[in-house]
């Protein structure tokens, strides 16, 4: 047993760890994350036109039952219960910011489309997610207001209908039917549906379990 060399190492390691501890104590650590990446790059990703889907695109996703899409409604639960987009989940904006979004966004193969009344909360949620590194996040442009005026109350006003327009209207009408079916459900059934769509935190692997 070499006491002397042990003691020297102890002094060194104590000095090292204590200084590291002082640095850490001075840092504003909260255990939460900050944004990552270069600000310019994140900004250009947020403003990119490809980040925004039109209501017609979303209507098509709903009608074709596209399984690579997840609609995230960031409005309040009350508003969500009143008007529920088919195949959407409800994460109110304040819950979304308060929790680690990883449990909602961790599937990289799925496009997450945020929806709010207008573009405000949905864009904030999208910008927040992109800043934290989840590039698979999008916004439904115009929000539910645009959805209601374009898809639900869609009427054709014109002389002749082209094949292309016909397909568009077909999609709109089918999406509107799905939306109305969804929202004419009795409240109890709807609540049940909402419960089934609730996210549960993803369990992390670890420990000795």
């Amino acid at each position: 047993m070499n006491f002397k060399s042990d003691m020297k190492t102890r002094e060194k390691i104590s000095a090292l760890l204590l200084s590291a501890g002082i640095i850490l104590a001075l840092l504003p650590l909260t255990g939460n994350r900050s944004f990552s990446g270069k600000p310019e790059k994140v900004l250009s990703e947020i403003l990119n036109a490809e980040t925004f889907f039109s209501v017609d695109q979303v209507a098509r996703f709903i009608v074709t039952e596209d399984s690579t899409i997840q609609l995230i409604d960031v409005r309040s639960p009350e508003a969500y219960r009143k008007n529920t987009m088919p195949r959407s989940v409800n994460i109110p904006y304040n819950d979304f910011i308060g929790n680690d979004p990883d449990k909602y966004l961790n599937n990289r193969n799925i496009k997450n489309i945020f929806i709010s009344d207008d573009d405000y909360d949905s864009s904030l949620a999208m910008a927040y997610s992109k800043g934290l590194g989840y590039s698979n996040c999008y916004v439904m442009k115009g929000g539910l207001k645009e959805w209601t005026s374009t898809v639900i109350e869609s009427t054709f006003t014109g002389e002749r209908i082209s094949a292309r327009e016909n397909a568009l209207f077909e999609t709109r009408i089918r999406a509107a039917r799905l939306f109305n079916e969804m929202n004419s459900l009795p409240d109890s059934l709807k609540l049940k549906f909402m419960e089934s769509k609730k996210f549960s935190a993803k369990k992390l692997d670890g420990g000795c379990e």
Partner: protein
Amino acid sequence: MGPISSLVIMPEWLDLLIAFMIGTGFGFALEQAGFSSSRKLAGMFYGYDTTVIKVFFTAAIVALAGSQLLSYLGLINLNQVFVNEYYVTSAIAGGIIMGAGFIMGGFCPGTGISAMSIGKIDAMVYIAGGLTGAFLFAETYPLIRNIAEANYKGPVKVNEVFGISPGLFTLILIAAAAVMFWLAEAAEKRFARPDITNEL
């Protein structure tokens, strides 16, 4: 940012290869520290050899401070690192049973495995006992299930309990450890047993 496993979906073989490599590092460090010797480990409880406390606390603090620093630099997301779940009753009861096992056997599972690998027969018997213990637990699980699942508090962090920043708690822990290291070396001198330590 890290942990890497949350960024990319790793194929199973790579995940297991990493597990093997990390295990190798773990076993190497344990053996080099002298944890393959049961009398060295037990020495901690009689004061003649305090390697356990030195290695254990240095390791915990290095990993703790390192992970905090990496998280500040944006290299690791600590929300994605597993935090042990706190079941009050079972943590205390299990800890007490483990303490008894520690002083009887002279190893803990990790050190037992690394001692086994260099041919310590007592360690092999210890691990055989460990396998029996795991089997007994599995068979008696229905009986003690209530104890095992009592008082669940979730993955709580210490700094949240005290309401201070993780960095400050780390500093307090480091200061406590530095004092402990100093005391440990004083104890080694006071309770020195050259007859034992020279054999190890």
